[in-house]
């Protein structure tokens, strides 16, 4: 039996904060690797569309510094997946720049691997022509759709991480990766049970979310030949078989199965046993290698330029007849936009969301009531920034003064600020939900592995 391999995950995402006391305590248990991710699709298509990072660079730098110091002290690898929120090349480069700065500051000699996961349109179109693109939740894909994407990333499995580790990387900064692969890679490289390694990866991926004390804990999994032991570390940190098992439900359609590059994790037969108040033993998870090796693709495409105008309706009479008022406003604005800008309904998108009434659920809203006030949010989108600006100029006086039918006096609703509009720039949508079949798990990813001489003086 091999010695258990300990994976320490201090946070669900770098840049969002973590318990430093718990992290320092966890280092005493001598982990074999510190691993975490830095992104997901959860913040929406803007980040992949623009290739930008949600987290603050100064906070990322401060957290990275703590992890780099710990890594150097223990002489173990630090792995960060899905850099830059969306896993863009720019996100990896942002982290690389911060990492190099910190290495110089700390005088560290450190081997850094950047792994890039952006896919060119020509690579994806070639795969499409060769019948290597398979649909998941969206059927439609053609060359035109691929060309529309401002950015496409492929989600890497464990192999690119293993490749970088075998090349001697001390720090891996990866583009888009499956959450689990980031944590499962080192244990799999060292020969741990793959079912246990992947399952531990899933439980670790959101940091302390699998504990009953998420604010004060970091989590560490020790993976061996027959399963893994997961531990909550920190003052008062606790986890239970239930909290560990329940994490398989989180952001996952099927609680028993996880599809990963190169195989499928089956956890229906897994058993969860409490060893003490901080530790749970998990056994019986099974990894089934798949026939084809596939990587999932994510793509975001621009869908127009958007501005928002916000107005608050407080007049009780207007609130009484709000639906009638909004329907009139909607109809009048569409007429004015089409007449003044010389465009048709297919050239723009205009929505009014009634905040306080049904703005979160729209037509599916099942409740109604009489609110004290309603925020009316007009969302204007069109193909060009100029056209959207014109739409907003037309909306502005109406959002401020639009009367009820038959009301002779012009009301003045509340604009919360000046200007009343908020320019949201170009907006994006997720358009790919497909996998790409590849012959080589490394082929879709690019590597840049270099040693930084922090103490070159």
């Amino acid at each position, binding site marked *: 039996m091999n010695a258990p391999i300990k994976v320490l995950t201090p946070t669900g995402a770098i840049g969002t904060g973590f318990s430093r006391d718990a992290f320092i305590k966890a280092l005493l248990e001598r982990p074999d690797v510190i691993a975490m991710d830095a992104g997901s699709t959860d913040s929406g298509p803007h980040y992949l569309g623009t290739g930008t990072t949600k987290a603050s660079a100064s906070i990322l730098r401060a957290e990275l510094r703590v992890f780099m110091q710990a890594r150097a002290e223990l002489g173990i690898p630090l792995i960060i997946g899905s850099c830059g929120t969306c896993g863009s090349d720019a996100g990896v480069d942002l982290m690389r720049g911060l990492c190099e700065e910190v290495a110089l500051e700390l005088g560290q000699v450190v081997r850094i691997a950047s792994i890039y996961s952006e896919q060119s349109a020509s690579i994806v179109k070639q795969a499409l022509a060769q019948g290597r693109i398979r649909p*998941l939740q969206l059927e439609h894909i053609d060359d035109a759709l691929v060309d529309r994407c401002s950015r496409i990333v492929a989600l890497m499995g464990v192999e690119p991480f293993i490749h970088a580790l075998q090349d001697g990387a001390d720090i891996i900064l990866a583009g888009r990766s499956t959450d689990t692969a980031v944590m499962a890679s080192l244990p799999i490289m060292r020969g741990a049970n793959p079912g246990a390694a992947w399952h531990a990866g899933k439980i670790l991926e959101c940091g302390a979310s699998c504990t009953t004390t998420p604010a004060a804990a970091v989590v560490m999994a020790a993976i061996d030949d027959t399963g893994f032991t997961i531990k909550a570390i920190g003052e008062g940190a606790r986890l239970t078989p239930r909290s560990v*098992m329940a994490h398989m439900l989180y952001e996952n359609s099927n609680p028993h199965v996880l599809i990963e590059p190169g195989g499928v994790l089956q956890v229906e037969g897994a058993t969860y046993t409490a060893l003490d108040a901080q530790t749970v033993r998990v056994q019986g998870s099974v990894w089934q290698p798949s026939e084809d090796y596939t990587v999932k693709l994510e793509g975001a495409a621009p869908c127009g330029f958007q501005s928002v105008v916000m107005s608050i309706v407080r007049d009780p009479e207007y609130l009484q007849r709000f639906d009638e008022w909004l329907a009139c406003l909607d109809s009048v604005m569409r007429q004015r936009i089409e007449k003044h800008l010389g465009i048709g309904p297919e050239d723009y998108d205009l929505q009014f969301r009634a905040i306080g009434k049904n703005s979160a*659920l729209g037509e599916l809203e099942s409740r109604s009531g009489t609110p004290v006030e309603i925020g009316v949010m007009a969302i204007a989108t069109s193909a060009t920034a100029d056209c959207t600006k014109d739409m907003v100029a037309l909306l502005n006086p109406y959002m401020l003064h639009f009367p009820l039918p038959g009301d002779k006096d012009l009301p003045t609703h509340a604009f919360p600020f000046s200007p009343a509009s908020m320019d949201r720039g170009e907006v994006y949508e997720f358009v790919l939900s497909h996998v790409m079949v590849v012959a080589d798990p490394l082929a879709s990813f690019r590597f840049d592995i270099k040693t930084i001489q922090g103490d070159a003086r």
Partner: protein
Amino acid sequence: MNTLQALGYEIRSKNAGPFSLTIDVFCRDSETFRKLATEPKLQAQAIAGVFQKNADSISIFPIEALNVIKISLPRPVVQGALHDRDMHGAQWAFILMDALLEPDRTTIDAAR
């Protein structure tokens, strides 16, 4: 008093990627779980009605060990699309909760 104490269950929804929604019904105990697992309003047909989807696109996983009923379906609107109203999909849980709380029509008819 939270809903778990008051009703015996709690419902949460969340994205499972940009194209799927997953709803977890956490039951207080195995008795509530057994009751809700056979509740007509938590079967595929009724859920499809609430979310205006096809019944065959709804997956339901009763997980006895956790007293949880997990329901997954295509997201009513793709996450972040122009007409998406809730980036993380957490408010859809309340529609299902309202549907469960709505008095059962057959019970009302029977009482008349």
